[in-house]
């Protein structure tokens, strides 16, 4: 029983990673209506940014804002050069962003070569502390949990307490009418795409110390993020929290009881059943029309 509780606490760090990885995807999909298939590669670019920052002597705390800016700029370029022309055609945005992802993988491989990069965690977060039970709980995981909470709160404040957030919520709910009230909806889409991309960059920067950095590292996180969205529903931060929470905890505990393959399988089955009962996800309601 004690070890189950330990696993439950460990699960929080998995949940935190899922939340950090999924929130950018959720915002872009929820507001701009684009399923960003390059999300995993945006995470990867964030991780490489952290690797570069590391080689220049910076640590994760510096890498987080740098990766945010680099990947936000990347998202801005992708949005201005490609996505802005095809917003109204969901299938094309899907294919175009997938293509962008492939291009990013190749370009990064050309620049950095095929070898893996390793990024150390900041010294201050080395080691861990003992909770109940015998296994130590690493400081870095606690840091991830706190960061996830901070990101969710900051995102919430931007969406619900600022003028930009007000415009975003108006556009999300009624795009045409928001335009008729004078909101430049194209600009809102652009800002949201850049912001969501930047969040993917942060995900990459904090994943770098716990994963080896490679051009394909983003893919599993993109898949997990899509599962979070499908389960939690799009258009709601609570959906991201609920989706990440359920998937992260279920996967951790089931993997401990059985093994990681069966754990993942059970989670997939659970999601299939869940979307049969809640077709729009637990908190979802929005579709771009």
């Amino acid at each position, binding site marked *: 029983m004690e070890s189950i509780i330990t696993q439950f606490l460990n699960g929080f760090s998995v949940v935190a990673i899922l939340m950090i990885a999924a929130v950018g995807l959720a915002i872009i999909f929820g507001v701009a209506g684009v399923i960003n298939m390059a999300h995993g590669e945006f995470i990867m670019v964030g991780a490489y940014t952290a690797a570069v920052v590391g080689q220049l002597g910076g640590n994760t705390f510096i890498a987080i804002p740098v990766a945010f800016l680099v990947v936000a700029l990347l998202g801005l370029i992708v949005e201005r050069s490609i996505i802005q022309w095809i917003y109204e055609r969901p299938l094309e945005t899907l294919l175009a962003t997938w293509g962008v992802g492939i291009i990013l993988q190749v370009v990064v491989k050309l620049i950095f070569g095929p070898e893996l990069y390793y990024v150390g965690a900041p010294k201050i977060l080395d080691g861990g502390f003992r909770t109940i039970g015998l296994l130590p709980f690493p400081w870095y995981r606690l840091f991830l949990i706190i960061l996830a909470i901070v990101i969710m709160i900051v995102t919430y404040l931007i969406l619900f307490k600022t003028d930009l957030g007000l415009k975003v919520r108006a556009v999300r709910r009624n795009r045409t*009418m928001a335009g*008729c*009230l*004078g909101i430049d909806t194209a600009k809102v889409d652009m800002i949201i795409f850049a912001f969501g991309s930047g969040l993917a960059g942060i995900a990459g920067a904090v994943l770098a110390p716990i994963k080896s950095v490679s051009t394909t590292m983003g893919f599993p996180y993109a898949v997990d993020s899509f599962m979070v969205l499908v389960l939690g529903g799009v258009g709601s931060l609570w959906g991201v929290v609920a989706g990440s929470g359920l998937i992260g905890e279920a996967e951790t505990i089931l993997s401990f009881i059985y093994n990681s393959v069966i754990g993942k399988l059970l989670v997939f089955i659970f999601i299939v059943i869940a979307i049969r009962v809640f077709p729009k996800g637990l908190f979802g309601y929005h579709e771009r029309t």
Partner: protein
Amino acid sequence: MGLEIQGIDTFYGTSHILHGVTLNVPDGAMVSVLGRNGVGKSTLLKSIIGINPPKNGSIQFNGADVTKEKTHQHVRAGISYIPQGREIIPDISVYENLMVAMRGIKNRSKKIPAFIFEYFPALEPTQKRKGGVLSGGQQQQLAIARALIQEPSLLLMDEPTEGLQPSVVEEINTIIQRIHKERNCSILLVEQNLDFVRDVTEHFAIMDSGQIVEEGDIQLLTDEFAGQYLSV
């Protein structure tokens, strides 16, 4: 000056809706557009505000060619639009609905101007409630308030009293007249109610199959004359 529409053609996909519509709304005037359902009245307003911009022809507003402008640019140039069905944003508050309209014209104030509640005292206590829970009449008041807060020089209204109970219709009509007189604002009104149109507008246009088939001073709009185009 004012709004000058010159021979516009508008399409929905491949179907041709407006056929060479020409119409003027001079500064300070109130013009009504009448016609049966499906003749293109709403499309005319959507063409002006840029939701469904015309393919051919031109739209001039206060001397500037605005045919190709985006919707938000029209709004910032002084054209506000009250759509059919009101289109209140349901899951944000009444206050936030009004704020969106203010931000739309780059007004950064956090305070709703007092004149809004002089026109719509019933909205003042509802500010914290979600737009979606208001009654039809309150939603229409909010839709007008949202446009009015932008202090437009031209107001486009699409059947503002549709689906409202008679007492509310009268209230809304009084407010429209007051706005026209007191806010120095020209109005292009799509409306089915002949009596109201005769009461308040100076000029009318009747549409049929995407064209303007009659227009003139409001005195010409007798029951018989209107009946030719409006009876079912």
